[in-house]
């Protein structure tokens, strides 16, 4: 008896038409019993195979070996699919070498934000600080992650590379709304995907050796 293939190996094209054969009206087909046994058997085969693999700890990686005939589901959250390199995850605020935020509170990100989820209160550095009068800094920097639509406009708008979405963490579920309000301290504590706070694009402050060109200390 030839079975009608639901998913034929060769796809039907105008040049190689595939004739779909209908199942015969026989007792075994009409009663469904052999097919039920076959179906349960297939499930059990997967069950025992997965259990054996988990037991022996040689489970194939569902992401890299997704074409393998075996398992196609993953045990989230123990297992996670790796996100693409440029995945836009939760925000983080970048810090300078001295630990202060890179952000100068220019409000470009909150201007660009279509969801209006960024709140910044600008302030001036205290008396005696080298940056006082030149720059401002965010006294408060709050992102409402529940309102955020993860479009990445804030990252594009930032002139200082102070806000990034490269944490590789997607929006986390919480049990109350106020937990989605991320403040400056929390945003600065997040590391990049590699787990470090280092950046390929460090700041070059005036007065440092790496600062390009002349500055107030070194003139022509």
């Amino acid at each position: 008896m030839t079975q009608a293939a639901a998913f034929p190996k060769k796809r039907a094209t105008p040049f190689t038409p595939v004739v779909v054969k209908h199942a015969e009206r026989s007792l075994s087909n009409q009663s469904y019993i052999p097919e039920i046994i076959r179906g349960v058997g297939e499930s059990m085969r997967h069950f025992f195979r997965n259990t054996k693999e988990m037991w022996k700890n040689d489970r194939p990686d569902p992401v890299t070996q997704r074409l393998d005939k075996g398992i196609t589901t993953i045990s989230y959250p123990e297992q996670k699919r790796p996100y693409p390199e440029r995945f836009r995850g939760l925000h983080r605020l970048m810090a300078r070498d001295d630990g202060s935020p890179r952000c100068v509170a220019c409000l470009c990100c909150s201007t660009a934000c279509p969801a209006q989820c960024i709140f910044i209160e600008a302030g001036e550095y205290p008396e005696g600080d080298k940056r006082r009068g030149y720059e401002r800094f965010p006294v408060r920097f709050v992102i409402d992650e529940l309102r955020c639509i993860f479009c990445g406009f804030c990252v594009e708008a930032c002139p200082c590379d102070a806000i990034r979405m490269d944490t590789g963490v997607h929006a986390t579920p919480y049990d109350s709304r106020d937990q989605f309000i991320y403040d400056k301290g929390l945003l600065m504590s997040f590391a990049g995907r590699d787990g470090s706070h280092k950046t390929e694009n460090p700041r070059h402050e005036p007065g440092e050796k790496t600062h390009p060109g002349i500055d107030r200390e070194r003139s022509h």
Partner: protein
Amino acid sequence: MPTFKLDGKEIPFETGDTIIAAAARVGIEIPHYCWHPGLSIAANCRMCLIEVMPSATQRSPLLDILEWDATLQDYRTVRKPKLQPACQMAATEGAEIQSNASENVAVARKAVQEFLLLNHPVDCPICDQSGECKLQDYWLEYGRFKKRMGDEPVHKPKAVVFGPTIVYDAERCVMCTRCIRFMDEVAHDPVLEMRERGNHNEICVADGHALTGHYTFMTEHVCPVGALTTKDFRFKARVWFLRTAKSICQGCATGCNSYLDYDPRYNRAYRHRPRDNEQVNKYWMCDEGMLSYRRIHEDRVSEPRLQGKTVSASAALQAIKQAFAGVSPNSVAVVFSAQHSLEDNWALRELAKTLLGTTSFYVSGLPDGYEDKILIHRDKNPNREGVAALARDAKSFADLVTDIRAGRATHVIALGGEAPLDHHDGEPAFEKLQAMVTIAAHDGPLTRAATVVLPATTWAEASGTYVNAKGIRQVADKALEPIGGAAPAWTQIAHVARSLGLNPQWGELKQIRTRLSSEVPAQTATSSTQTES
């Protein structure tokens, strides 16, 4: 009226007009940095260059100019007509001027713009002028070039404190000298000057002096770029988040026309700046006036009070009803406020005269203060003339105190918390009163003395009309939403009238305005075009 042609359009002018001034009068802007209609002509920014077309009998004055030729890969000499600064060029009958239409002018504007931006730090994200900066506007309109200079720009002093209110950034400065000219010509306090030349050019304060006085904020306001910033507005807000309402300064009886910039998201005012009105304040405002927006949020009465405790509006009105039950109209004193608008005072007069039947009127307000010959008026109330027009026989606040002491007034209905008293000392005479109702926006001696206080809106939270010392009637538009239980004083007065079992005949601002225009003498009003300018 003689005319000249600007880009083919006939522009009328008066004898002595410059081209830029005549064009500005009909609403055509020739780009400029250093020219200001209220200041002398400096003609140093060169942004307003225009081409004067030669007449039939004349030859155009030509200059030899080196122009880069991309095909030759070298400079070559070309002859171009000499351009003139529109701010200095006197308009002459029948002259033909080209501004936007001229190719040469477009090249010159772009070159001037590139020159001004040569050493500019381009720190727009942290600059407070960003969003209302002429450098940004003109770059978009006439520039659109990329920076060609590869060298590090010349660095100059930043964050120089000029005085208690102003901070200067020499790197952003285009040396238009507007601030210097303002201090010389308008404030008559020539403390600003220029030093060095070329790239090192900067504005500085005269040795041993600071930028102080009553007109320091104006130097920031006339600055077309972000060089001068006020400590008050610095780092506080981005201008593109602010909305603007046409307002009237409440600082004194001059009644300067102003713009009130506020953030609708936080219902907060951030800035007060002058609005041009040739009749009243020209282009200027004083520091006290520009800072007076702060008063909107200070010492506010936000909820009804009974004996100093916050109560519901119905409880407050019930208390008024009980206090005024069976009181003879002769013992009720009505106190108008020179701080409140014409509408508020009109409603109070309507309540007193028509509904209650009392005629003992008094005026309160802030005491007199500093005055000068430029803008600042001795009378610190915006609407004393308006109250005078409404109630000619109103007596002074001192008379009220005398009458209370003498027992001629036992009940008082007052508008406004301010009184010509020390702000913290109450007036012992008020303790003799049986009941006092105060409808006020701000806490003051009269709210502290009151039995019942009803919260009113400030001038920024409701539209109102004010009559300044010259008798010019001007309208301040509503900007912010009222806080708490505050409502316009004329609404609160209507509530009081209803609680006393009376039937007030006004429910909308429009009705009051119609009644006002027929009642208040015409000589106090000017035509709307003069106040709308």
